């Protein structure tokens, strides 16, 4: 399984990433990609910007582990995870998860799984800025419930 992980300030080009993932591969039957975007309304309305902090070193390691775990659960040929950090504006793309597999179900499920685990395990923190001040975004119970769906029974 080919794993590509990047934590970066710059934006990403989904099409270019898909090319990178599939070039020369005639055995890939399905590519699923998820893009997360910054919204102007989250915990409070009027979000003007978002600052993403992470824990350099641990972040890359934990994303790699999540990709590996997905690879153990599904037949995957490639996984790309790109997460942006720094200051972002509403409408900016913030995260890209792309999975490739011979058949669609594995790619769909693995992409979903990676996002759920990323949201509860990878060391990123969001601070939202509004005209009335800035605040750290709190964790969501629904994210933990989503991640728990994948616990092996």
């Amino acid at each position: 399984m080919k794993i590509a992980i990047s934590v970066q300030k710059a934006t990403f080009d989904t099409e270019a990433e898909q090319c990178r993932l599939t070039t020369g591969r005639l055995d890939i039957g399905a590519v699923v990609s998820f893009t997360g975007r910054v919204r102007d309304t989250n915990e409070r309305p009027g979000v003007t910007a978002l600052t993403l902090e992470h824990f350099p070193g641990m972040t890359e390691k934990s994303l790699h582990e999540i990709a590996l775990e997905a690879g153990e659960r599904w037949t995957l040929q490639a996984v790309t995870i790109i997460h942006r950090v720094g200051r972002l504006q509403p409408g900016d793309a913030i995260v890209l998860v792309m999975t490739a597999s011979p058949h669609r179900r594995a790619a769909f499920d693995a992409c979903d799984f990676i996002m759920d685990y990323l949201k509860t395990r990878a060391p990123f923190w969001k601070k939202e800025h509004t005209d009335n001040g800035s605040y750290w975004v709190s964790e969501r119970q629904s994210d933990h419930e989503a991640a728990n769906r994948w616990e092996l029974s």
Partner: protein
Amino acid sequence: MTLTHLNARGEAHMVDVADKQETRREARARGSVRMQASTLALLADGDLPKGDVLATARIAGIQAAKRTHELIPLCHALALSKVSLEFTLDIEESCVHVEAFCRLNGRTGVEMEALTAVSVACLTLYDMCKAVDRGMIIDGVRLEQKSGGRSGEWSRQAVAQTSLATTGEKGAISPTGTLKVQFLAELRERFEIAECTLAWEQLPTADIAGVKLALIERDAKFKALLSQRVLCARNEAMSQDGTVIAPGDEIAFFPPVTGG
């Protein structure tokens, strides 16, 4: 074990490296300058008479790394491919931590370059701040890690862990060493501190719970670390209160993650 800079007659000589293989060489060194809290505050605010202290010390460190061979008699002149310096202001310890990193593809190691960079950056910090604080102490200049070459990988942390393991007592407290503790995101803002160091002997137990107690002993504000919400990593891996730690470990405390 022999000293490579001495020949068979015990005379100093420069090692001939012409026949050595080129490999990727890297080294990381650290040191710190302890100063009065008021000096550190002036430094943080950029209010010192000589101007931007850290920018100057950074350039000094990079220049020094490039000229190591002019200072250390038997050192080779190296074409370094990368020299970087990081400064961390530690309000809790009232000091500036300096870290230098050097890299090249070549036939000799870059430890001396990294150590020289740290030393000269520390000296420059002293020079830039001495008008307000003559009692500053340059402290703990040391190699942290090196890789490449015949002797391969070495890291202070790995050595510390091995020595702990050989004592055979899991979780036993050895008499020396320090821990680096980081606070991230909301916790950093709440505690108004990004990182600090703990002396190993301050820990009541050699695990994460012991780190928390030692911090609370230092300042009651750290009681917030006892909250179930607070997460912890030891050497970049998620950890629990019971996780055993060793001298040289890097511990990080942070709030629940909110990426994606």
